[in-house]
């Protein structure tokens, strides 16, 4: 028999409330995700092509320019 949405909600709610070690782990997960997405991604890891070019045509032209510059290694 399928659980109702309310039963599912209660299942998760009671589960989270009964956590002990899990609370610490969730805090670590939350902190880690915050650092990764709100700090690192925003400040240091912008997508170069998304940020500097406005269309796929421009992006492909840029990459093609790089490929045809014959960059010495």
């Amino acid at each position, binding site marked *: 028999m399928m659980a109702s949405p309310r039963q599912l909600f209660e*299942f*998760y709610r*009671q*589960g*989270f409330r*009964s956590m002990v*070690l*899990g609370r*610490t*782990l*969730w805090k*670590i*997960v939350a902190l*880690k*995700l915050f*650092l*990764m997405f709100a700090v*690192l*991604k925003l400040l*240091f*890891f*912008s*997508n*170069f*092509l*998304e940020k500097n070019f406005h269309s*796929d045509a421009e*992006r*492909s*032209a840029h*990459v*093609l*320019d*790089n*490929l*045809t510059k*014959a*960059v*010495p*290694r």
Partner: protein
Amino acid sequence: MGNEILSTVNWSRAQFAMTAMYHWIFVPLTLGLSFLIAFFESIYVKTGDESWKKLTKFWMTLFGINFAIGVATGIIMEFQFGTNWSNYSWMVGDIFGAPLAVEGIFAFFLEATFFAVMFFGWERATKGFHLFSTWMVAFGSNLSAVWILVANGWMQNPTAMAFNPDKARFEMQNFFDVALSPTAVQKFTHTTGSAFLLSSLFVMGISGLFLLQKRHQLLAQRSMVVAAVLGLISSVFVAFNGDESAFHIAHRQPMKLAAMEGLYDGQEKAPIVLMGIINANKKPGDNLPAFHQEVKVPGMLSLLANRDFGSFVPGVNDLVYGNPERKIVGAQQRIASGKIAVAELTRYKNAKKSGDEVGAAQALALFNQHKDNLGYGYLNDPAEAVPPVALTFYAFHIMIALGSLFPIIFIAVLWFAYRGTLASHRWLSWVCFACLFLGYVASQAGWVVAEVGRQPWAIQGLLPVGVAGTAIAAASVKTTFFIFLTLFTALLIAEIGIMVKQIKIGPEA
């Protein structure tokens, strides 16, 4: 300018390597321990013995710690694709998009749904559904691994794609040919097999510690036996699968195999080097010996590479300079062909810009004749096609040596368990504890072989790492390298700290 680009590329490589190695500390334990937990719980459900439930919950706690600390560490590498490797990420976007999308949608949601039941549902779900959920977490975790390994397999052996010169992209021709390519299949099976092996060593290591401390001895012995069974099966599987991998590497990445064995001059009845000290001064084409010391077994490399004891295995020099007698096209020739490909791609681009359709068609026709060597066109010296031989050689041999040791340990555990004397052999408990760490060494060494051995290629033969990167300042990559180093080290210390605390508490928590 050239030095600045090289510095950026090298810092980008270092950053990716560092984040990948940290990520790979957490992942194999997730992949393998999830299955061990499923086995433990299956025994509990079958026997109804509550001590097996306690045992399962203990290992599940450690699994949860490892999962929570490790989750999303892989996303960092996707960030790097977009920032440090923009040329590469654009070019492979069509190939990687589908596998990674499937990973996110299918495997993650499967895992996340049943995760909650596994941890919250002991008293709320039926035994059968809880056990089913535990197995689903195991399968879901491993399914997550499939897709990233398909992507990596494609980098090693690009297949089922066509290069679109208008979009500067590799376009997938057939999803299933990419997903089921022999390289992708071997990558997945060897990697997950090694993860099961590592997880077995993890369980045996902590169980060994319990035996040494004379704590939770029944739990420890039971855990060791189940882990030793999975570990032994995994060892045999990984050995056979590794042999298959080497066979495919010999034909698809022969330079990698040559580096793995420090083979500079190809030969028939090529020997395997059991152990050796590489001559770090040796360069392609010189007369220096490849080794200071080595112990070799004749013919075994020929057997491994070609399944023919007397067959010819090309060495670094054959692959760099070519060997017409053996019909081997060397990097020297490929560079000449590749430079034509780059020149014609340039001509095509310029012709399209100026509206010269005839010129564009001519350039494209010539480009297509040489496109398989496109990546070589960016190298200036054939020796650039050689990966770091010493690092590849030592990593390969460390992996093999440890991989040969582990099944002996598993057999010893099973033998003494059968004799009923497992707890009394303290030396074996110490060995098991040591092998917990050695398992991680072997696991990392395997990835070093795979990724260092494919250098200089981001995509084998088609895109060297020097062209794959973004032209950004090296200083910014250096900065983020140290930020990641700090973040990941903190995470690792947190994981070890929390795990040690839980191990000290034991299954009574």
